[in-house]
C-alpha cells in the first residue's frame, strides 16, 4: 500500500473522530432546538433506535456470529464484539440480578465523550450518550429480544464510570421455544 501503517491507523482514528464530532454537533443542535433535557434525551433515544434497527444487519453481516443461547451470552456479545467493532472499546459485563435478565456494561472509556469536558450547568440532566441506549434497544428488538436500556451511571455527571443497564423483558412464549 502506498500509505505507511502508521498513517492508516491515524486515518482510522480520524474517521472515528468524525463520528464523535458529528455526534457532538448533533447534541448541540438538539439542545438549541429543545429547551427541556427530557426532550433532548427522548429525541436521542428515538434516533438511536432507528439507527439500531439498521445497525444490527450490518453487525450480523460483519461478525457472522452464531445464535446466542442465553441472555448472558447476548450481553457478552454486545460488549465484546459489537462495542469493540464500532467504538473500539470493550466494556465489562456484570449480571446484576438473580433472575439473570439484568446486566450492566461498565465503560471506563467512552469514546463518544472524547471531546466533552463537562455538561453545561443548565443541562445537568442531559444523557449525552442516550443514542447508545436507543441503538442497543433497537438492535435487540430486531433479534426479537425486548429490552430496556438506560444509563445507570454517567461519568459526565460525576460518577466514577459510565454504566449502561440492560434489562431483558422476558416473553412467556420465548421460554417455550428455548426449551425445545
Amino acid at each position, binding site marked *: 500500500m502506498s500509505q505507511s501503517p502508521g498513517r492508516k491507523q491515524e486515518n482510522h482514528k480520524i474517521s472515528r473522530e*468524525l463520528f464523535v464530532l458529528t455526534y457532538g454537533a448533533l447534541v448541540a443542535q438538539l439542545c438549541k432546538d429543545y429547551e427541556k433535557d427530557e426532550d433532548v434525551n427522548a429525541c436521542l433515544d428515538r434516533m438511536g433506535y432507528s439507527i439500531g434497527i439498521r445497525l444490527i444487519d450490518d453487525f450480523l453481516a460483519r461478525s457472522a456470529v452464531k445464535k446466542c443461547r442465553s441472555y448472558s451470552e447476548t450481553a457478552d456479545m454486545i460488549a465484546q464484539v459489537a462495542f469493540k467493532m464500532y467504538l473500539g472499546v470493550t466494556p465489562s459485563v456484570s449480571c446484576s440480578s438473580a433472575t439473570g435478565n439484568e446486566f450492566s456494561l461498565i465503560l471506563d472509556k467512552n469514546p463518544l465523550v472524547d471531546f466533552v469536558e463537562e455538561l453545561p450547568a443548565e443541562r445537568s440532566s442531559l444523557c449525552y450518550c442516550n443514542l447508545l441506549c436507543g441503538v442497543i434497544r433497537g438492535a435487540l428488538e430486531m433479534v426479537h429480544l425486548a429490552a430496556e436500556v438506560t444509563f445507570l451511571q454517567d461519568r459526565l455527571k460525576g460518577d466514577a464510570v459510565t454504566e449502561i443497564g440492560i434489562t431483558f423483558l422476558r416473553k412467556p412464549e420465548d421460554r417455550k421455544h428455548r426449551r425445545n
Partner: protein
Amino acid sequence: MADETLFLLLHSEMVAGLYRAAEQGEGENGRCTTKLESMGFRVGQGLIERFTKDTARFKDELDIMKFICKDFWTTVFKKQIDNLRTNHQGIYVLQDNKFRLLTQMSAGKQYLEHAPKYLAFTCGLIRGGLSNLGIKSIVTAEVSSMPACK
C-alpha cells in the same frame, strides 16, 4: 471499516430527524438545510484541526484543494475525489462519481429531489475545513444523477 457504517447511519438519521421535526413544527425546509450545514461547519473545523496537526504548511489555494480532494476525502469517505476542475480564479469543482452518502439511495434519477438534503452536511464540512485553513468560501452542491455529485 465499521466506523463508516456508524457515521452513514447517524448522518441519514440526522437528516430524517431534523426534517421530521420541521414538519411537525412551523419551520420551513430552508432552515433544516441551514442547520445541517452549520453542523457540518463545526465538525469540519474540528476535523481539519486534528487532521493537519502534523502536515506541512500549504503552499497555496490549489495545494489546499488538492489536499481536500485526496487526503481529507479519503479519510472521510474512503475514496478520492474523481475529478477536480478549476478556472484558476477561485472557483473549484470537485466531482465525486460515487458519493458514499448517496450510493445507498439510488443509482440514477430516482429520489433526486431528496439528494440535496444529504449533501448539506458535507458542504458544511468542506466550508468548515477551508475556513480553519484560512479560506473563506461558499460551497454548493449539485446532483444530476445519483450517486455522482459535484
